[in-house]
């Protein structure tokens, strides 16, 4: 049996988890998809937990060490599992007041990226916090997993930053490329989104095709019943898009992700990363 496409919210025990859950619940309601709250327990067998530096080997040294290690690990896993269950249930309770929403919770062992990748085929939208537990005490403005996930997962990913505010207007950072054109199509084919106003913004150097592209996007969305305005904002895309978000009071950004190779972004920096850092609104990144 093929699983229905679901909205997968990746949560951990940070404050961001509740924002992630709220946005995921909103998206799931809009997409009429079931919501799954996923907590990935990342085990680190390559890191030792407790240490005995006596260097002495007693009778049955190996057996007793094996017994001790597996017992300790077992107890630790139990604690983590129980904590996880409790906070997942708390998050699930947040979604329960929405009637049409089916919510499931799940804990899995493994590494975050590979766990998410495995489920790719049954997920319509991933939702994750731009920063998580591991980033809450550092100054980094982009969690260390986010870029890796956005690069590897070939599904729309919504990354959220702050408190939940039901989005009313969407800004599409449009470049006329295949990726964002599909974003427009996706939006247009989703009648549940029709009450949102859409701003389609192109930026960078104006080319001959720019207006044609914008025209197409606008017509496509108008045809689907959306309220649309489109504009060409010349200048650096990062600044243009951030400014447009503030000016138009958009509260959801849709853009293409990482069209260039990791090597290029190593040298030139990544536009996607810059935008993720700069924009304060939740963002859906699209992937080819």
């Amino acid at each position: 049996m093929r699983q229905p496409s679901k909205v997968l919210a990746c949560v951990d025990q940070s404050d961001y988890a509740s924002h992630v859950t709220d946005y995921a619940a909103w998206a799931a309601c809009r997409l009429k998809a079931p919501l799954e709250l996923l907590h990935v327990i990342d085990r680190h067998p390559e890191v030792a937990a407790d240490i005995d530096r006596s260097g002495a080997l007693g009778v049955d040294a190996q057996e007793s060490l094996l017994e001790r290690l597996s017992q300790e690990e077992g107890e630790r896993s139990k604690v983590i599992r129980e904590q996880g269950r409790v906070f997942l249930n708390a998050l699930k309770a947040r979604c329960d007041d929405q009637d049409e929403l089916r919510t499931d919770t799940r804990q899995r062992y493994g590494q975050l990226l590979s766990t998410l990748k495995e489920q790719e085929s049954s997920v319509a939208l991933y939702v994750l916090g731009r920063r998580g537990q591991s980033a809450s005490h550092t100054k980094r403005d982009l969690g260390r997993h986010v870029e890796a996930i956005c690069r590897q997962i070939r599904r729309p990913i919504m990354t959220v930053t702050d408190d939940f505010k039901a989005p009313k207007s969407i800004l599409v950072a449009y470049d006329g490329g295949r990726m964002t054109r599909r974003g427009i199509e996706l939006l247009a084919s989703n009648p549940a989104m029709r009450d949102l106003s859409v701003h389609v913004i192109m930026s960078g150097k104006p080319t001959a095709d720019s207006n044609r592209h914008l025209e197409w996007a606008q017509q496509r969305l108008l045809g689907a019943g959306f309220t649309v305005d489109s504009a060409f904002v010349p200048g650096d895309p990062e600044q243009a898009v951030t400014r447009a978000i503030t000016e138009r009071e958009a509260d959801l950004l849709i853009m293409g992700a990482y069209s260039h190779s990791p090597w290029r972004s190593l040298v030139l920096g990544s536009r996607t990363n810059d935008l993720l850092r700069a924009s304060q609104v939740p963002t859906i990144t699209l992937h080819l």
Partner: protein
Amino acid sequence: MDTIRQEWFSNVRNDVLAGLVVALALIPEAIAFSIIAGVDPKVGLYASFSIAVIIAFTGGRPGMISAATGAMALLMVTLVKDHGLQYLFAATVLTGVLQIIAGWVRLGELMRFVSRSVVTGFVNALAILIFMAQLPELTNVTWEVYAMTAAGLAIIYGLPRLTTVVPSPLVTIVVLTIIAILLDLDIRTVGDMGDLPDSLPHFFMPDVPITWETLQIIFPYSATLMVVGLLESLMTATIVDDLTDTMSNKNRECVGQGVANVATGFMGGMAGCAMIGQSVINVKSGGRGRLSTLVAGLLLLIMVVFAGDWVSQIPMAALVAVMIMVSIGTFNWESVRNLKTHPKSSSMVMVSTVAVTVATHDLAQGVLTGVLLSGFFFAHKVGRILSVTSAACDEGRARRYTVYGQVFFASADRFTKVFDYQEVIDKVYIDVSRAHFWDITAVSALDKIIMKFGRDGTDVEVIGLNEASATLVDKFAIHDKDGAADLLLDH
């Protein structure tokens, strides 16, 4: 990139400290094993340095400690005695080459024929041999040596009850060395056993003629060293796998051991392999990554080269105490308690492995004995899964025998004996469709039965031979497909 970070830098602090603990424990062991092999302590110390450092990069099991070992040292005694040190270096290089080849042809997979009992026997034999190697230091000596050794053991096992912050073997060595110097005791020290390293090792060609004759001398040694080295390394890898609940790459480990030995031979070291005791100490001390092995190797050499004068004053009694600890820690005491409860055949395999190894000082022969015995016992057990029922039919003119179970060399004899050749009868049906013929012995046993009945003028009709002999084919055409299990169990 992620793997490199995970294998090297995910546990830095613990790896460095564990490496330090291991390095301190490696020094006495490397010296002790050099003495077993009959070479200068520097040969074992250089070997431990070079093997540990190289295997940190090339090995397939992060966190495992490899160095000069007792199992290998025991195998080179006669080579060193008869032909000298240079031949040992050449043999070490050849051992490494053979191990690399073994890794390429995935010889590591043969490890599945080494049963649990053989592994236990290997470990126990190793512990006994390490203990026996200490006996020369404890015979015909003054009472001071006994007192020192006893004091050493008391510190080793007593100190961890008070604190686990400092390695107790290190404290033992330091305390006993200070006592020996202060009291000016006339007992043997490490310095009496031969040269210690005075510089960093360098590459050189072993000084042997590159001839067919040389190869004939070193090849038998290298072949045994290869087998024992890989056996102990793969066993240790499995132990570390279990302890840390992670996976290792066994074939990479074989190649890695080979590379380490080749380089070690060129650096004036003796062949080595993974060490069970040290790897357990490493994991216990918090070592998990490759860094722990690297640090152990580097610190070992730094300490020995720069504190060589102190190392040479360590009394042998202190080393003996440490080695007794290693042998006690390596021995599987549970296996002695299990002798009563485990099946007799398993216990016999274990005990034979130990006995042959201790008698020959050659772990390869011990393991071979164990593997052969477990094969025999298995064949014997499976051979008992054979039953034949018979019933008269066709109003007493014929008899139908139905054969169930496994027919092969171990059960063929019993198979031929269950038929009643004296019965006066016209025809015999033998239904073998529910039996399996595993080898040529089974087929010829059937031929023999048909012939015997034929002599009495009884016709024989065999039913279902095709099904029964499907298992004869070496490459299972049917039996590795889906549903093979049903076929084997029911048909």
